[in-house]
């Protein structure tokens, strides 16, 4: 199945491709709604995801200038209160002055585009830029796992490629960038990934090869993953004849990157569009 000319590669769809090419095809090319449960216990997963969204919004409110007290009053759930306190007391700092929250960047890459939405970009033009990603997973994942995630490679790479206008018209030097994963589970122990020219070159090649692989698959076949344990957390398992029930979640930070992780999608945009 052909990849549309206007297709944008993101951390979610690339990670899905890495995990299972067939899932990539079903989810992003065929856009097949397949409403089976991904992981159990579904309501707990859903609740955690919704709280995670609320937490991200609270930070957005705070970074947009609302007072911490006003924002704190909107949280009554114990986890949310704890996370908020952790954010106020242990958020990574010092961060550069200029803040961009929930900011999207995209750039041409080969015949397609790359796209990413950043939780927080903190920028001192001409000096440095810090990418902060808030993680509300139940446990902090190992650094080696994080370093393998597509997000860790794509986010700094794209900031170099597409961040020129945020840096007085000059592309950031890789050495000026840092990616910080901050965890509600261990707020005092964020994981920092400084960037480098060498890493940029490696990431460029990695993303180029990966996308070439996707394009190649689109002209031949999107195979099922060889790691069948992945299917236990995939909503398409019945379509692929690879299992019946969803497995208990094995929480890691990667889950929350995908807005569909619970199999329950939120689309706030749609509400207003339906209404009148």
């Amino acid at each position: 199945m052909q990849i549309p000319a206007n297709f944008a590669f993101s951390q979610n769809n690339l990670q899905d491709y890495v995990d299972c090419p067939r899932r990539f095809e079903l989810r992003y090319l065929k856009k097949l709604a397949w409403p089976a449960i991904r992981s159990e216990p579904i309501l707990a997963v859903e609740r955690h995801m919704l709280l995670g969204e609320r937490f991200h919004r609270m930070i957005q409110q705070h970074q947009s200038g609302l007072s911490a007290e006003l924002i704190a009053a909107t949280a009554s759930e114990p986890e949310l209160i704890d996370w908020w306190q952790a954010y106020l007391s242990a958020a990574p700092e010092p961060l550069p002055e200029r803040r961009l929250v929930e900011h999207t960047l995209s750039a041409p890459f080969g015949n397609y585009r790359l796209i990413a939405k950043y939780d927080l970009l903190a920028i001192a033009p001409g000096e440095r830029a810090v990418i902060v990603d808030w993680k509300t997973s139940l446990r902090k994942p190992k650094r080696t796992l994080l370093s393998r995630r597509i997000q860790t490679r794509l986010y700094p790479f794209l900031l170099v490629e597409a961040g020129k206008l945020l840096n007085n018209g000059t592309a950031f030097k890789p050495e000026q960038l840092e990616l910080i994963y901050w965890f509600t589970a261990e707020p005092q122990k964020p994981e920092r990934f400084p960037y480098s020219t060498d890493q940029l070159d490696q990431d460029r090649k990695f993303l180029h090869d990966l996308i070439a692989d996707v394009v190649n698959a689109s002209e031949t076949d999107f195979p099922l993953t060889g790691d069948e344990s992945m299917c236990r957390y995939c909503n398409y398992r019945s379509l692929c004849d690879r299992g019946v029930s969803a497995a208990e979640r094995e929480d890691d930070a990667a889950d929350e990157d995908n807005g569909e992780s619970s199999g329950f999608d939120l689309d706030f945009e749609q509400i207003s569009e339906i209404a009148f």
Partner: protein
Amino acid sequence: MDRFAYTPVQEQIIAAPLAGSRYISGPPGCGKTSAAVGRLRRMIEQGITAESILILTPQRSLAAPYAREISRPDLPAGGLPTIVTLGGLAQRTLQLFWPAVAGSSGFRHSELPPTYLTLETAQYYMAKVAAPLFERGYFEQLVIDRNRLYSQILDNLNKAAVVGFAHTDISRRLKNAWIGKPEQTIHYEQAQECANLFRAYCLEHNLLDYSLQIELFAQQLWPSHLVRQYLSNQYRHLIYDNLEEDVPVTQDIIREWLPAFDSSLLIFDQGAGYRAFLGADPANGETLRELCDQTGEFSQSFVTEPALQELGNAFSNILRPKAEKTVTPRALTGYSFAPSRFYPEMIDWVAAEVARLVHEEGVPPGEIAIVSPFLSDALRHSLMHRLLGHGVTARSHRPSRSLRDEPAARCLLTLARLAHPLWNLPATPQDVRAALLQIIGDIDLVRADLISAMLFSQRNKQAPLNSFDLVKPEMQERITFSIGERFMRLRAWLMDYIESEPAELDVFLARLFGELLAQPGFGFHDNYEAAGVTARLIESVQKFRRVTEATLQATGRSIGQEYLMMVADGVLAAQYLLPADEPPPDAVLVAPAYSFLMINQPVRFQFWLDVGSLGWWERLYQPLTHPHVLSRRWQPDKAWTDVDDFSANQETLQRLTSGLIARCREHIYLCAARVNERGTEEKGPLLYGIQSLLRLARELEAGHV
């Protein structure tokens, strides 16, 4: 993704300095939006940060050309513009600034986050607050479905918000305009009472329906210094397209905001205003012209051939009472009149003619649209079925479809009733038979009927399906063991569920789908359409659960039971939105005429169905609301007379037909049936107009004109 060459007029807009305000107007199809898209591209190429560009349209479908542009692979690297409607902007801003404004907005629990209502959940709460009043005899003289009354009361609230008057003033406006039987004014008062109760309930429970979102944005957020500063910092450039289709409150906000933008481009479609029934106010929008530094006119159509342009002129004059009625020889080549005796005959003819165009003339299916004033399920089904029979790909577009009438959804709801005996919502053998047809892929009606007759027990609620082993061997053989085996798996799954702790309804449905119905051998396994319907149903239940969890907890009722009861009452799952922003496939479009206009995608061939129908001309029967009286154009104390009604309908028809003709490149088929869908003869003003056109054509051919 080839680009076309711009005209000098378009180039002027594209290359104009990136400062100051510009207003361009012109009829549809003359390249205004294309010029604006070109300008957007140039702005980004010239180094304007894309995230500082706000693209505002009244409806998401109208923003499709901009969305396409920003997804092109060759768009320069950087941020992305915001493409949004007022509703979207209001909601984003509310989500961000809720803590700052909620306290002064009358909400009882302003410290807690709000709950955003969908159309469906708003209707649910309206039913909840209004039902006791119905029991007391409110609206009892109105012979109309109760849910339509709910939606009209919500519509009134929305109109008050988007037009900009107090929601408590709805009945006064409606009563002042009414000159008919006095008892109608009581209905207006009752509708006002329902609206007031609904608003009070929303404030009490932190619920935000569309009307409250717009009111909060316009009256609390927009005047706030903090918010205005945030929005002004965020957005430095504006492109506001199809402003004629927008509501006064948006146009008012833009009026105030305009001086703060570094650059702005406002685009006005002349002769449009198709969303007037939703509060669109072209006249108010047009006043924005006066505030702009530069104005420009586009006039040359890139869509319609001269024949169709002349047909449009002729038709406009025919529909205007005092205009001179003439037609040119060229206009006669722009249309064909296709009369049939009966409705099905008309549908057959349309399908055959479409097939001829596609198969013999080589017309791509995507270049054909079949439009009608309304698109009933029956019409949609019969057209799609016939087109498919001719080997023609077709797609239907309606703003909403009845979810509960989809066979897959009915099947799921039947199984939900069987699985929850305590809810006391029994299923019938007919329901079970219909469900089996969906569940077991290769079962036929006879076998499904046999199973439901022999193995379904209405009395035994704890075990509604009996074992296949109880069936006599010869009958087992007739039903087949393969079907029997799958029936037994269904039975086992249901029994396991009944014996365990009940799940939330959406969770039940998702498990049922994934663990059984979508497994190999079952009917949903490779049925993508059924999977799509299931996804929509689950989404509907899920939104209902999230919104009602807090308010239902107090009553002790199960959310799932409440949902199923509301489905039975027609409040929920009555409609759902089709997926948005899908690129149009190369398929014949079957759509209501207004939906086609709002897609704003011209085609080479149009088929206008049932041109004799009054639906092309008159408004829907809406006894509790009135789009004209509740608009800003109407003087609040003036009476609405038959003359007003006639001229409004006439104007609607003229606008609709002009809009359709302006979106046709080659030819229009005017299809009439002497006997309509309901078996009666109908001759509406569109048909009279067409007859006038035919008369003029005959006179022209006879040399009399």
